[in-house]
């Protein structure tokens, strides 16, 4: 068994190492280019397919816990109908950062396969840890996913409540604090926050 597969592998390796006999360099270049386009298109399509709310809520862990909670908030339902879907806040929009996050998500695939949070109780037990991941991420990138939509330079403070305007100007305008410092639990329910600074 081992000898046979070794022989097959060796012959494959020799073929790969040998220069092409039948195909011209031009053909190989053009064919490689075209295949590259097809591969790239397919890769990105598959990537974007995993970047939709439909995909996220395909698992009951997301659908029955966090998605249910989102539904009651202003990020799901509001007067103008503009809304955020899961990846808008939880996946970076820039390509490199997105790929990095997607690679991290392989851990979440592991969790799904082995049922790390496949019951409500397990989810509640892990909720603080899960939330901490997101808070740390948003704190580290200066609430980038919030700011993709909520740009401080475009905020008309005069249209905010005086209380909100004052606090935004004092803490956000000076960049002393970032969105997630005060707005934890804006789209999902909070876990036990004992000992976690909020604001």
């Amino acid at each position, binding site marked *: 068994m081992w000898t046979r597969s070794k022989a097959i592998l060796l012959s494959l390796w020799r073929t790969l190492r040998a220069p092409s006999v039948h195909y011209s360099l031009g053909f190989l270049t053009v064919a490689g280019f075209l295949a590259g386009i097809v591969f790239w298109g397919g890769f990105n399509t598959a990537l974007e397919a995993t970047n939709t709310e439909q995909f996220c809520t395909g698992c009951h862990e997301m659908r029955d816990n966090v998605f249910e909670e989102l539904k009651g908030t*202003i990020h799901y339902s509001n007067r103008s109908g503009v809304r955020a879907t899961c990846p808008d806040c939880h996946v970076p929009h820039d390509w490199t950062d997105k790929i990095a996050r997607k690679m991290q998500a392989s851990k979440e695939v592991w969790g799904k396969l082995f049922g790390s949070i496949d019951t409500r109780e397990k989810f509640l037990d892990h909720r603080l840890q899960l939330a901490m991941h997101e808070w740390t991420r948003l704190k580290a990138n200066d609430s980038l996913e919030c700011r993709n939509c909520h740009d401080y330079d475009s905020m008309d403070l005069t249209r905010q*409540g005086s209380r909100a305007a004052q*606090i935004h100007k004092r*803490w956000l305008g000076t960049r002393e604090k970032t969105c997630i410092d005060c707005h934890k*639990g804006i789209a999902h329910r909070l*876990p*036990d926050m004992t000992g976690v600074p909020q*604001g």
Partner: protein
Amino acid sequence: MRNKTLWIATAMALALAVMAFSAGWLFGAGDRPRAPAAPAPALPVVAAADDLGPAGMQLDAIRRGVPIGREAVPPPLAKVDNADLKRERAYPMQPPTIPHSIDGYQVDKNSNRCMLCHARANAATFQAPPVSVTHYMDRDDQFLAAVSPRRYFCNQCHVVQTDARPLVGNAFEDVDRLLHPPAGD
């Protein structure tokens, strides 16, 4: 002409179809009684803006005087007053009303959104009035370090105010007014 029979058959079939159609059209249109115009649905009665009802009927304020047999249009949802202006208290011990909206504030075992700003330690950061010292006292008047559990749920006493019209009349008199009625009363 090889297909003569086919042509004749087709023409006859067409003529028959036309006849059947016109017959159907004529009879159908003539016989069918015109559907009686659906009675205009009784317009739901919008409560008049100022009908508190006659005195003694104030408990009817929920229906706003709309007869029991008719359907009332619910008044539009009231808007929460969000002007951040402190309001007068009607009596010295009245819990102050909340001068801002509190949509989506989570106040439960896990977290208390109100205390994010109104806790003693956070009040300076957010320039919010800290909760009074009574909130830190237990029922034996002992001062605690944190808010007393019996005062934890803010909405038990403090509520927002909306621009809704009062449902019932109110003859409340301020204590100052009661003690020192203006001349003429």
